[in-house]
């Protein structure tokens, strides 16, 4: 383990990697602060920039963007009550009241500290868990692998916000989009529609930029009219009182534990971890009524959970090649583009990339801590730029980014197409994020299915006969049945909002 850590740091502290880590974190925070753009869109936006880089540098930068954006979203939540993403919505609950009480600086500071602690411990968990998961991954066969992927896919589709049935729809559509292009086994071009540019399949960048970037911009043009944050946040106002620090110690530790638990699980991630952590703190607090009024625990704990989950989410992605969330799917896609096969073989075949990336997490977290303090003023000023001036910039960035990958105007037209489709999805309440997960996992699943059926001579029962696969398939079927029941129940009794929605925090179906 020690040589690995040394190897990792030797890779991570090269001048190039350090600078790109810095750039990644900086850009990530900057983009994360912008309303409506979360880590997913941020990583997609900067994906083309990484094409010219070495694989380890590219991943280091993207990882920096990822947790930088997570952090940036919290800043917007605290100052403006406008979460960058659902994960940051929790930060609004007590962060915004604190802001109104003039304690914005303290809230931001505790967010920073909480994120740093959560992230650091999360990295330790990551380093401890990964070898174990890798060993597990090496021991299982295509049948089990397929079952794990199917479970991950459907868990991500059904758990979280939105109606489970719609989630499943998006995941399936993602898988279908993933099948466009040349089939690896037979060479047949599927759904090519006679267009040569489609013969290699849809490009991840095009899909992500269109579905997330462009559709988000269209949707936000009318809704993102927000009040500017008037006062400035001075350095001195950021110093928390001793009471604040004392109150936050255990919440931060508990939050980290919650985050480390939910991070590696497929279908859950920083958002759920943050909500759970908030709920936990409220439950164990001596005076729960303080929550919602500006309780510091309600800010520090979820942020630790958030960041811990963001780090530990890399465990299944790196160790098994199975992304547990759409953002991880982008990471996996980025690795594939650079020719790195994430999974159990990654540690043996590309140990420098693997450990270099892990070491860069430490450095990135440190940079987050250090950068935030002087830069808060800048973030505040950015938040004051009217959206109508920001979004054309975002669009131009998307266009340039997409065009520069292949110098192909066709790609830009595809972004337009998917942007409109994505907007259509949005207004119909179809969440685009799970689609990305299906897009990445779909072809991988097909491979494992093919192998599994080859080995079993066409017998589908093999999925139930093997213990790991069997259990997972049963759980997956359970999830699907749950989704079906919800739909049937809504059909039977259309007016009463179901109690399940209240538990998940969903708005009741109309």
């Amino acid at each position: 383990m020690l040589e690995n850590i040394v190897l990792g740091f030797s890779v991570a502290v090269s001048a190039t990697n350090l600078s790109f880590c810095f750039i990644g974190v900086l850009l990530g925070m900057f983009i994360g602060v912008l309303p409506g753009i979360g880590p997913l869109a941020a990583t997609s936006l900067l994906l083309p920039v990484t094409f010219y880089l070495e694989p380890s540098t590219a991943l280091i930068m993207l990882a920096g963007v990822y947790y930088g954006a997570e952090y940036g979203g919290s800043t917007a939540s605290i100052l403006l009550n406008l979460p960058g993403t659902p994960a940051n919505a929790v930060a609004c609950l007590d962060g915004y009241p604190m802001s109104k009480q003039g304690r914005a600086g303290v809230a931001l500071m505790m967010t920073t500290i909480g994120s740093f602690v959560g992230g650091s411990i999360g990295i330790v968990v990551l380093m401890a868990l990964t070898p174990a998961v890798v060993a597990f991954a090496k021991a299982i066969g295509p049948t089990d692998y397929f079952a794990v992927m199917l479970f991950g896919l459907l868990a991500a589709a059904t758990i979280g916000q939105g109606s489970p049935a719609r989630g499943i729809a998006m995941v399936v559509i993602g898988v279908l989009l993933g099948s466009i292009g040349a089939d690896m086994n037979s060479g047949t071009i599927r759904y090519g529609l006679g267009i040569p540019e489609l013969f290699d399949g849809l490009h991840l960048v095009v899909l992500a930029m269109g579905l997330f970037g462009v559709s988000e911009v269209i949707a936000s043009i009318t809704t993102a009219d927000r009040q500017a944050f008037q006062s400035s946040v001075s350095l001195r106002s950021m110093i928390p009182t001793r009471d604040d620090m004392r109150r936050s110690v255990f919440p931060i530790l508990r939050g980290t534990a919650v985050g480390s638990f939910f991070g590696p699980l497929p279908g859950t991630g920083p958002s759920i971890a943050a909500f759970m952590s908030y709920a936990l703190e409220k439950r164990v607090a001596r005076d729960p009524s303080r929550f919602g009024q500006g309780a510091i625990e309600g800010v520090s704990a979820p942020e630790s959970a958030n960041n811990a989950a963001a780090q530990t989410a890399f465990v299944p992605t790196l160790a098994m090649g199975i992304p547990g969330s759409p953002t991880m799917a982008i990471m996996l896609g980025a690795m594939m583009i650079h020719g790195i096969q994430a999974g159990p073989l990654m540690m043996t075949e590309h140990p420098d990339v693997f450990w270099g990336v892990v070491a860069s997490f430490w450095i990135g977290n440190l940079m987050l801590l250090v950068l935030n303090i002087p830069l808060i003023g800048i973030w505040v000023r950015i938040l004051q730029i009217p959206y109508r001036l920001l979004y054309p910039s975002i669009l131009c960035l998307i266009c340039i980014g997409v065009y520069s990958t292949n110098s192909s105007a066709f790609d830009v037209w595809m972004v337009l197409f998917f942007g409109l489709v994505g907007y259509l999805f949005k207004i119909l309440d179809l969440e685009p994020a799970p689609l990305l997960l299906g897009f990445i996992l779909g072809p991988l699943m097909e491979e494992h299915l093919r192998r599994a059926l080859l080995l079993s001579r066409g017998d589908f029962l093999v999925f139930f006969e093997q213990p790991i696969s069997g259990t997972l398939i049963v759980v997956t079927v359970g999830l699907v049945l749950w989704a079906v029941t919800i739909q049937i129940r809504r059909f039977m009794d259309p007016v009463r909002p179901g109690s399940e929605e209240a538990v998940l925090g969903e708005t009741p179906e109309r």
Partner: protein
Amino acid sequence: MGKDSVQKPDQGRGRDVGGLLAAGLVGAIGLFFTLGALNYDLGTARRMGPGYYPLLMGAACLVVSLLILLPALRRPATRVIFEAKPALMVAAGIAAFAVAIPRFGLVPAVFLAAAISALGHEKTGLLDTILLAAFLSAGAWLIFIVGLGLPLPVVKGLW
């Protein structure tokens, strides 16, 4: 993204347009892929052909569209709000970029894209638009050509 859905509940009579449209869209996509899959060799379970998996998934898509359709048939009315102007202007802006960049180069393309899409917002006037577009095209030149050295034509015909 955590924002309120753009559908608004309506206590009157009528249909859950949003649900019906969603079911229709998902169903159409499912149908497209399922029918398409039949064009390829399906193979057997033991030896999956290229059409096997898409057929399976396409069928699943159709089933899910029915699932979405079910409650939509009985739900009270919703209105689906489609903001035409922003959608149109953003689309036009991107189209302008796609057309302009191979013919005219980066700077004109960014200028057009920024200007056209900026007009999609009600509050943006002509002067704002031109200033913003100029700023962004200059910025794009600085960052991408000078800074990152991307091999893109700057202004076709000049350099």
